[in-house]
């Protein structure tokens, strides 16, 4: 297709916290500066800026992309904000990728920012507008409903127990204990702790859910000829994919994320991957809820339908297992500042593949990883594959 090779050459992030002193602009700048410093570039080297951030309703700010633009380094540059719900954090680097792959730009700064704490009394209410205003919102739904409904359907279709799903939360929160930016890392949490946590919307309990958070992440993407001058260890974007399922979410199979499958197949085709289970060494599926990681692993073709819990039961998913899953700690452990959380997964692949992940490092010099996010009423799938 005449596309140029694109590498990630730098990354940076802030701590993920329940509520930050810094504004969205300030968080964006901190992450962007760290990303540029990490590859010894300055803003003068950047041709364009891509920003990812979730709905304006969180911040109560109109055109949030423009609002945080100074912190993101966008002043005086081509700038675009993308938004596909929770899938944004993995879509924004796809946008950066096609800016560079197309030959338009040589160096792109990709920033994802989220400040969820401003919304009162709880950010959950900002999500209510995703329900149809006429046929659903009149029922006074809350956001947990859709997850509880989907989780219950998933459990029922395949006969999966709450215990098996709780293992996901446990592993991710334990992994996050090694992450210096994590909000909910916990090295000693057990399955029983998850099962004993408060029931919010059965089958969803408190520890099944990722926390509302503030934070920002940034990466630097560069064309091949530039990337090779910048670093000896560029991490190449090998495949990207995105896909959308129906917005009539009650008219489709809730037990299987078809939109993730199609996005993943697009990315696998681009990367020339025929057998994902052998060729992917690290997976960072989107895990705002623990069952969601399982659901997405199946959509990513890394497990048969209904078999993803087995990866956690037999240790495959652990950091030193055959297919480490969310070695970062994921959204359940590190935190879930929506757009920033997705880009955190891409940054984690960058650090893991370069061997720079410190206490979180997956052994055996992993060569290739996949990051995925999902958005809106469980219908947007976004996927990035990166490798050496």
């Amino acid at each position, binding site marked *: 297709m005449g596309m140029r090779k694109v590498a990630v050459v730098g990354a940076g992030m802030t701590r993920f916290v329940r509520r930050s002193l810094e504004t969205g602009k300030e968080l964006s700048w901190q992450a962007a500066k760290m990303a540029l410093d990490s590859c010894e570039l300055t803003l003068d080297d950047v041709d364009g800026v891509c920003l990812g951030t979730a709905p304006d309703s969180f911040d109560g700010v109109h055109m949030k992309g423009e609002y945080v633009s100074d912190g993101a380094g966008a002043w005086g540059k081509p700038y675009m904000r993308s938004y596909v719900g929770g899938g944004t954090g993995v879509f924004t680097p796809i946008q950066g990728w096609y800016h560079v792959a197309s030959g338009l730009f040589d160096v792109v700064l990709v920033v994802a920012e989220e400040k969820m704490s401003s919304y009162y009394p709880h950010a959950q209410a900002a999500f209510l507008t995703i329900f149809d205003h*006429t046929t659903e919102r009149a029922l006074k739904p809350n*956001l947990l409903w859709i997850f509880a409904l989907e989780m219950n*359907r998933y459990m029922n279709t395949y006969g999966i127990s709450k215990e098996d799903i709780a293992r996901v939360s446990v592993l991710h929160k334990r992994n996050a204990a090694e992450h210096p930016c994590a909000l909910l890392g916990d090295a000693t949490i057990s399955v029983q702790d998850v099962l004993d946590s408060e029931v919010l919307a059965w089958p969803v309990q408190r520890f099944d859910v990722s926390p509302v958070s503030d934070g920002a992440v940034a990466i630097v993407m560069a064309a091949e000829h530039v990337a090779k001058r910048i670093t000896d260890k560029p991490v190449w974007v090998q495949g990207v994919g995105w896909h959308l399922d129906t917005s009539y979410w009650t008219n489709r199979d809730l037990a299987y994320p078809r939109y993730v499958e199609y996005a993943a197949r697009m990315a696998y085709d681009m990367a020339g991957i025929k057998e994902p289970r052998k060729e992917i060494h690290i997976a960072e599926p989107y895990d705002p809820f623990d069952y969601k990681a399982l659901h997405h692993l199946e959509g990513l073709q890394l497990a048969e339908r209904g078999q993803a819990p087995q990866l956690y039961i037999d240790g495959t998913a652990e950091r030193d297992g055959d297919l480490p899953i969310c070695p970062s700690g994921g959204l359940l452990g590190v935190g879930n500042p929506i757009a920033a959380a997705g880009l955190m997964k891409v940054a984690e692949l960058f650090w893991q593949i370069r061997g720079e992940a410190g206490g979180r490092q997956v052994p055996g010099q992993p060569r290739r990883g996949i990051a995925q996010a999902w958005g809106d009423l469980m219908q947007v799938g976004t996927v990035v594959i990166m490798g050496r």
Partner: protein
Amino acid sequence: MTAKIKHFPGTSLSESDFSEGKVLFTYDEMRGEFAWDTGIGIGAYLAGLKRGQILGAYCPSCRKTVVPPRVVCEWCFRPIEQIVPLQDTGIVNTFSLCYVTWDMQRLTQPEIPAVVEIDGASPLHGILHKLGEVDPQQVHVGLRVQAVWKPEDERQGAITDILYFKPLEEQQ
């Protein structure tokens, strides 16, 4: 890189920093009011609800019956012209026992949101609604249910014209 960095930016605040005035903040309320047109497909659906009827739409090209009705088929992108009446019964596709409200206040008696597959629609095609007149512990996937309607003179042409779905009599 992360391994080399010892100090990450980002300063954590707690609720008490606000309540005790340790940080400055601005509080404001925004209020938005909207009146949404129902459109053609949903307009027909709501008119049907007012009559005590759940309507779907049939695409002859895809041979699918979807609910609620709409004017275009997502699958073939052809117009859907056949609005068809469905039953007011169905089966529980999935459900939740929800103990919190939208703003995270706690409930002692759970709400029971459910996706109900409507009889007459294609398989796995349902609507979001709530269950009632049922012991929460007795609800299960596959439960057959029937709509409980508001009295005719109180119906407004809204999804709430169905109060909730309850288990079908024959099972109890």
